Structures are given as structure tokens and as C-alpha cells.
């Protein structure tokens, strides 16, 4: 794909196919960014994935902390409720959420793209499991010193959760970056397209777009997460193994 994205369309059609591009060209990328506004789609995707990730890190950790370290009536039921929604298919919420966003005039806005994914059950599960390992004595010591609960959460518990936060952050960012069906439904205005929606829209264009440009578009969508994955791959596999073993 990467190699093809630098080939001219004549070379792509050549038989037998070439392996390395004969005359490497940036023309495919140029048309992505100049004719197709991929810079905007890239920014949209980055903003949405970034904010979704931050929101998940904060909200899931807060509930994870409460479930792991505070006792209150209904705690078990709440945990069961959260876990019960792990396998709910996105298709089920699609229609009502679209109606809701339409009623609120939020179709084609960032809040519509971000809010529905701002807190997910997987993050709660991960953070609760990790927070349980924090010794109670540490928090009690802080309580005796008169520290508020939010201070303990933010300044004592959260800094100890570095690896779990890294894992959750990466997996959430990735899921959001690759998310397709909801952005497809809730954006009709090209300006608000995320990268996958823009690429799919372009790829299914009946005017048969040029394969070189399609390959370049796929590269723009895949390369950032591939780079992140290769640098941080231990967090991926560990996080997934964590959920698999305990789930």
C-alpha cells in the first residue's frame, strides 16, 4: 500500500506489476491534501480521538476509583451494570442517538462525535482492576492528614496507575481513530468527516477514484496508529492480555 501510494497511475496499471515505484511521486498525497481536504479530516479525527481519550481517562478512572476504593450502597450492582454493557452492539444505540442528536441540533458537530464515546465500560473495568492493587493504608494515611477524596484520587491514586492509564489511553485513542459507523451516521457535512468516513466516502464514489490516491488515503489513516503501535506495543498486548485473563 505504502509503495503503491508513491506510484503514478500508469505504473499502477502496468503489467507485470512493479515492486518498487520507478519514479516515486508525491502527486497522490498532493491530491489528497489539495483536492480532497484530507488535512481537515485528519484534524477532525485527531480532535475527536484526543478528546474522547482524555474524557475516558478521567471519567473511567473516577468510577474505577469509586468501585475499587470507596464503599457505598449499590456498588456491586453498579459494577454489574457497567460490565453488562460491554457487549452491547453499537447498532442498538445508533437510531435513538441519531434522533437525539438531531433533536438537539448537534448533527455535524464535535459534541455529537465525542460525547457518546466519552466514557466506556472497558475503561471502568481496567481502572477498577488496577486501582484495587493500591494499598488502602496509603489512602487512609492521606485521609488522616485531612486530604479530600478527590485530592487522594487525583494526586495519590492516579499517579500510581501510569501503566493502566497508558494502556487505556492508547486503546481508546485507537478505537476512536478507527471508529466508523457513528461518524458515518452523524456527519453529513463533508467538513465534519473523520478520516475513515472521508476515505470510505471517496472509495465508494461511483466515479472510480484513482487507486494511487486511495492507497495514499489509506496510508494517511493507518500510518499514525501504526507508528504509535510500534513504539508502544507492549502497552497494547499487556492491556489486552489483562482484560482477557481477568474477563
Amino acid at each position, binding site marked *: 500500500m505504502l509503495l503503491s501510494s508513491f506510484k503514478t497511475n500508469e505504473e499502477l496499471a502496468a503489467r507485470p506489476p512493479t515492486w518498487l515505484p520507478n519514479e516515486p511521486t508525491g502527486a497522490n498525497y498532493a491530491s489528497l491534501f489539495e483536492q480532497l481536504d484530507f488535512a481537515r479530516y485528519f484534524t477532525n479525527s485527531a480532535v475527536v480521538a484526543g478528546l474522547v481519550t482524555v474524557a475516558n481517562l478521567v471519567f473511567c478512572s473516577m468510577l474505577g476509583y469509586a468501585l475499587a476504593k470507596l464503599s457505598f450502597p449499590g456498588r456491586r450492582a453498579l459494577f454489574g451494570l457497567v460490565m453488562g454493557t460491554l457487549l452491547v452492539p453499537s447498532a442498538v*444505540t445508533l437510531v435513538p442517538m441519531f434522533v437525539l442528536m438531531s433533536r438537539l441540533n448537534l448533527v455535524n458537530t464535535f459534541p455529537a462525535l465525542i460525547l457518546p464515546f466519552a466514557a466506556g465500560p472497558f475503561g471502568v473495568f481496567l481502572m477498577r482492576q488496577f486501582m484495587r492493587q493500591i494499598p488502602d493504608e496509603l489512602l487512609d494515611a492521606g485521609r488522616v492528614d485531612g486530604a479530600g477524596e478527590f485530592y487522594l484520587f487525583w494526586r495519590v491514586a492516579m499517579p500510581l496507575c501510569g501503566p493502566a492509564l497508558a494502556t487505556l489511553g492508547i486503546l481508546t485513542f485507537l478505537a476512536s481513530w478507527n471508529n466508523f459507523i457513528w461518524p458515518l451516521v452523524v456527519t453529513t457535512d463533508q467538513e465534519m468527516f473523520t478520516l475513515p468516513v472521508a476515505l470510505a466516502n471517496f472509495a465508494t464514489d461511483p466515479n472510480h477514484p484513482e487507486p494511487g490516491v486511495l492507497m495514499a488515503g489509506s496510508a494517511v489513516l493507518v500510518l499514525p496508529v501504526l507508528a504509535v503501535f510500534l513504539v508502544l506495543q507492549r502497552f497494547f498486548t499487556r492491556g489486552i492480555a489483562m482484560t*482477557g485473563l481477568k474477563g
Partner: protein
Amino acid sequence: MDRQTAGELPLAAPPRVTTATAGARRWRSLREALTGYGFAAPYLLLFTVFLAAPIVASLVISFTDFSLGAIDDPADARFVGLQNYRDLAADEKFRSAAVNTAYFVAAGVPLTMAAGLAAAVGLNSQVVRFRALFRVGYYTPVVMSIVAIAVVWRYLLDVDVGLLNNALEAVGLPRVAWLSTPGLAMPSIILIAVWRNLGFAMVIFLAGLQGIPQETSEAARIDGAGRWQEFRHVTLPLLRPTLAFVAVVTSAGYLQLFEEPFVMTGGGPVDRTISVAMHMYEQGFGFFNLGYAGAIAYVLFVAILVLTVLQLRLFRSAT
């Protein structure tokens, strides 16, 4: 000792102290409960608005003729009882979608699990070199956008310009219209899905395999078990919880098949790759038959629940 509340007298008589500390304790646990709810509040708010309420609303909408006009004025929608579900039963396209999705799950899930397990067993044995490289190689497609993968594979499989057909031709074989031949389109999509998802299964299986103590495999060897017998009678039974987890998660994901046919085939040829989720999307957001789409979504939801329960039963009863 409990922290003293502000109003408590330092030199109170003994009985009074106990009631005061009991009161303090009650106050503390009340405060802790309120703190707990406070911490849960942001999640619960988002959960209620964007998950719990829509799950219920989806069911309600599926009993109405909710359409585009009803978005502006929900009073426009009428209750039609089970009509949407009756229509579904008679909907040829839905039947195709259900058959295709079942085919995708029934073939794709076992293949993905087998491939993932084979990769994990291979990587877990000491004979393979460059293990880290293989692990990254298998896992890489999992992090990639399915849309991008579908776009690239559609091009690779293209009958006129695709690299796969160019390669076939180069070795003297005929070109094949992978995605536009009715009998080949879904198998092609299945193989691509297996290739994309086997890395996920592999990582979970690797973790499961590493949880099996060395002694069990040594004991099996001493008892004269061959490699296959050891795998069949020692490793597999010990991996049962891991197998159950991978089966449930993979099936739930595969039942929601959407991107691949959406990008690669548009559901064709002759509806041979249209999926339930894709039919729902077309009905709901192409024709704005939102009530009908809600019914399709609920059928899919129930299918996932039923399959999950069945699989958990199956893996448990096999013990």
C-alpha cells in the same frame, strides 16, 4: 481513632462517647457514599444518556413507524405493534443479510480462533526465532482501520488491476473476480477478516498459554503423550476459559460485520455480502425507516446475547 466531629465534647461521659462515635461513623459512611456517587456521576450521566436510554428507546422505536418526519415531531410516529418485526420476517433482503452474517460468523470465528491459536502455540514454543517480530507482524492488522484495510484489499483483489490477479496471471493462472463472483465474495471477506483479527486471538491465547504451568506439560511428556496428544488433552482443556473469552468477543464483533461489505462490495454481488448491520444502516439512514432499523438492530442485539449465552454454556458444560 475516629476523627472527632466539631460539636463533640472532649470530656463527655463514656456512654455519650459511644453514641457520638457511632454518629460519627454513620456520618462518615454517609459521606463516603456521597463521595462514591459523586465519583460515579459523570460516568453515570454519560452512560444514561448515551447507552441506557438509547437501548430502551431503540426498543420503543422498533414498535413504531418512526421516520424522518418524526425527528422534528416525535408525535408523528405511530405505534404499529409488531409490524416491523413481521415485515422483517417477509423481507427478502433481511433474510439474505441474516444468512450472510451467519455464514460470516460460522466460518470466520472458528477460522480466526484456529489461526490465532496456531500462531500463539507457534510463538509459545521455543523453536521459532524472531518471536517478537512475528508477534508484531500478526498484531499489526488489528490496530489498523478496517476501512483502510477494506480499501486496500478491494484494490489488491480487483479483477483488472489488482496485484493478486497480476500475480496469478504472471504464473499462468486465470484472473479471478474475487469480489464480484457470488460464490467468492463472502469467502474473500472472511479470509480478510481472519487475517485482520487473528492477532487479537493470538495475544489472548499467548497469555493463556503462559498461564499453564510447565509441570503439567512435563507430566504429560513423562506419561508418554505425544505433542498432539498433549495439545489435545492437556493444553486445550486448560485453555477453555480463554477459548470462551475469545469466542464470545470475536462472535460479538463478527455479528456486527459492516465496514468490509460497505467499502468492498456495497453488499453485492446480488446481495451475497450484505450484512445485518449494513441492512440496518441502509434502512435507517438511507431510507430513514428508523422504526424498521430499530427492529433490525434489536434482532442483532438479541442474536449477540443468545450466541454469548450459548457459547458460555458450551464451554462450561464441556468441562
